[in-house]
């Protein structure tokens, strides 16, 4: 299917700085289909997740069928189709953390935050996620709260840190941060 400039820009608001960022990345990569994953990384960093219209935009820009883009997004753990929440609480479930009790830790957090792993709190403030292994095995079990690593974590400590994070950010009125990592 031939691609036209106006179709490309019709999907996303042109004034949105995120659109500009994404368009710049696509241009930098020469809109090559093999740069799809690189471009998806940029898009996810900008939007926090990959909304449908963003995926459609990318598929048109790279002249790829939308199914190819969706198939790639759904294949990789890194890419998310849903918002991950303004803040992220990431529990490492690698082997070393598992041996040091990450399972119980995760359960404590699920109970304390009243959400399951992979879900976001109803107010959209915090997403609870699990990671395969962040490679900080010497400090197991590890939780990453936004970008801060909490070594040798316990459920109580993490819940306290979460509460501190949410209340302090509220007071600052700061803008929501991007989910870890990058």
């Amino acid at each position, binding site marked *: 299917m031939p691609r036209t400039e106006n179709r490309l820009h019709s999907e996303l608001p042109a004034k949105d700085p995120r659109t500009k960022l994404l368009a710049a990345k696509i241009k930098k990569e020469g809109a*090559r*289909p*093999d*740069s*799809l*994953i*690189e471009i*998806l*990384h940029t898009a996810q960093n900008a939007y926090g997740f990959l909304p449908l219209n963003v995926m459609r935009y990318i598929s048109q820009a790279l002249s790829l069928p939308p199914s*190819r883009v969706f*198939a*790639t997004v759904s*294949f*990789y*753990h*890194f*890419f998310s189709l849903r918002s991950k929440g303004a803040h992220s609480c990431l529990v490492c*479930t*690698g*082997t*070393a953390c*598992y*041996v*040091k009790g990450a399972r119980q830790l995760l359960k404590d957090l699920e109970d304390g935050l009243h959400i399951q792993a992979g879900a976001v709190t109803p107010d959209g403030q915090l997403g609870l996620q699990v*990671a*395969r*292994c*962040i*490679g*900080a*095995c*010497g*400090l*197991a079990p*590890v939780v990453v709260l936004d970008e801060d*690593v909490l*070594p040798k974590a316990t459920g109580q400590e993490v819940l306290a840190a979460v509460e501190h994070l949410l209340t302090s950010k509220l007071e600052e009125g700061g803008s929501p941060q991007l989910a870890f*990592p*990058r």
Partner: protein
Amino acid sequence: MNRIELQTKAEQAKQKLHACKKRIAVCCGAGCMSVGSGQLFEEIKRTIKEKGLDQEIHVLPTGCMGPCNEGPLVKFIPGHEVYRKMNHEAFLQVFDASSGDIRSIPGMRLFSEPGKGSFEDSREDPYYKKQCRIVLKDCGDLNPEELDDYLAHDGYQALAKVLFGMSPEDVIAEIKQSGLRGRGGAGYPTGFKWETVYRSVRDHKYVICNGDEGDPGAFMDRSVLEGNPHRVLEGMCIAAYAVGADSGFAYIRGEYPLAIKRFEGAIRQARKAGLLGKQILGTAFSFDLEVRIGAGAFVCGEETALIASIEGKRGTPRPRPPYPAESGLWGKPTLINNVETLASVAPIMLQGGEWYSQIGTAKSSGTKVFALAGKIRYAGLIEVPMGTTLREIVFDIGGGIPGGGKFKAAQTGGPSGGCIPAGHLDVPMDYEALTNLGSIMGSGGLIIMDEDSDMVDVARFFMEFCMDESCGKCVPCRVGTRVMHDMLQKIVTNKGTPLDLERLGELAVYVRETSLCGLGASAPNPLLSTLRHFPQDYEKHLQESPHK
């Protein structure tokens, strides 16, 4: 930069390094960084400057020093005294700002255990003494973000030696003589791989550095990329020269932002210095590379899946042959080597294949980096000659099990590996010995478990991992891992029957024999090895089951 300029620059860097007699190295590996070593580095630097000592004391951030759970670590050079769990107050206690010397405080030193002598020079402690650091040699001594520091540690000398005095055949012969085998897990002889790519005659060839370290509990590649990125880069350049490649990719896990940042920094510096790009060191050899960030799929560690991922597709493997060495990235001959393998190349070129082949055992030469974690006193990164026994690693180097626990098993090879029981603590760690025990060398994750660990649950844990990570392309893996997981779940919750156990054993063999790629073929390994070495754990769950 040509060869003479490289030598001049290296000399200057060395002089600069030696002009400053005293150095304070602050470990800035991801482990120590996450407990605040980045801030500590800034604080120490400021203190030194405020006291007007910055002419005689050089403060530098370094890569991983080893025992990550004791961080942040600070090393005082030339004495090599290492202090653990440092913060700014502790630093001021140890460091006498008025004289610029350290007040040696044995109690605050690394390895100062009650009942254990503490050495002033940390290298005298069994932790370091039993190790043989080749890949990690300068990791922890040099600043990974400074090209000059690498040059002062003989950086890019191997590349210069290769480009100015060796033919590609010579390089391959040297690698073959060294006996180096792929450190990513499978242990395929590196020299043969290089030769196959070299012999494939095409217009373009690629070199890929596999940094998609997916095994949970393994962080060797991350630490090497963070601690000495130029070493990996140099290895890639030499590999590219040997096989005749002109471009390459470094595929690094997205979970490793610091490794990506430092490696990208190293690429920029090398390009600027003419060590990468067109006509490297003024020769006809050109090579350049890009970083590709992994998007979180364990199966992408498999080389054909990794290639698909670099091509921007779903990372699903394809049948081999053709092997990537003949038809890889975009159908071109492609050399894929693991980070640690590539980091071993420069020392082999400088000191010779003969030298390297003398280290380790006859069939597994050289050294292996292990990521020691779990129930162990000194968790972190170590490098030992191949053939070192598990007992030496766990007890002499790792300091044993903390809190008086009893060693139960060591898990090697991640979800593709197996568990080694206490009865086999004297196994020499090399490719063959571990395979004989039903485990594998793998990429180097070594998780120590004590009596608290239920091995059935360990098997379930890894099966869950493989089930989630199965790409879904072939049925034995996609369905088999799910069924095996559910059966293990049934047993571990005391609902299993002896028939389940029997079927599990059968199914494991089917999955192993019929899966398309390494993920499926090795997914039953943790199950089979725990069944073999810990039948009592399975028995215990069956005894507690009402269906027995």
